[in-house]
């Protein structure tokens, strides 16, 4: 008697209603034993092998992979942050008065032998608001008069 191959028995296990070996299996003790062993091995897979190996099977599909498209998504927040920084630090307002190195005030005296510098070397510190330290001096010498 020719017994069905492993592949046919696998098909039988998968869907007995469509099996081409159903009638043979029903009357064959050897094949019933083979099927019982195959079912037991399948059960071993479900109970022991599946839980122990599922993570490794899924690993390549869940691991983060760096692709150019993902790089674009990562770059987007960085570009947004850069734009905000540029806007915040873009420079002084229209009414800002400033000079590289700070202000220098020189007073001149009209003397009989000519005009001479009377006092000088007063500097505004650029880190401090000019109005609080030398506002009067600054108003005495506006940029337009220089």
């Amino acid at each position, binding site marked *: 008697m020719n017994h069905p191959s*492993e592949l046919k028995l*696998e098909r039988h296990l*998968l869907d007995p209603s469509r099996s081409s070996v159903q009638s043979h299996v029903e009357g064959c003790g050897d094949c019933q034993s083979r099927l019982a062993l195959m079912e037991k091995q*399948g059960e071993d897979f479900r109970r022991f092998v*599946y839980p122990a*190996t599922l993570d490794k099977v899924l690993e390549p599909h869940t691991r983060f992979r760096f692709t150019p498209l993902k790089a674009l998504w990562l770059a987007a927040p960085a570009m947004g942050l850069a734009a905000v920084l540029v806007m915040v630090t873009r420079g002084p307002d229209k009414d800002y008065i400033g000079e590289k190195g700070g202000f220098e005030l020189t007073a001149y005296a009209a003397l009989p032998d000519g005009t001479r510098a009377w006092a000088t070397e007063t500097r505004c510190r650029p880190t401090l608001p000019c109005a609080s330290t030398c506002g009067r001096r600054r108003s005495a010498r506006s940029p337009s008069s220089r």
Partner: protein
Amino acid sequence: MGGDHIAELYRQWGPAIYRRCLRLLHDQEGARDATQEVFRKALSSPEKLSDPDLALPFIYRIATNHCLNERRNSGRRGETELADLDMPSDHPDFPTRRLVQRVLSRFDAKTQSIAVGVLVDGMEHEEVADALGISRKTVSRKLQRFLEHARKYLERSAA
């Protein structure tokens, strides 16, 4: 493909892969490792796994090739002797199967798969052709060549 879908496919086809690996490797631990490897290879063609008519021959082919490679490689590394390929000594095909076992490792992977399919698993030529994705004529031709070379090999060994 999502993780849930892959897990479902693994649950569906894993038992058949495991059985095939266990049958060819005769080692539970080896079969466990081989099962996940075979399934990962099978995932390269997810459309075949989704079609029950295509899936079984497909995973059978991958599992057979993978396990025969494993056996060949472990034999080369000297780790283990080739395990017996389910050959009860009172089986009428025992001499032929013994012949298969002794000379199997001398042939290429496809010929090995054909020889194991026909002479060990008892598959029909058409089934083997279907499982390996080759023509029935190729199965017959390669099997014939295998048997001729195997006999010559044994005659030389005996002399």
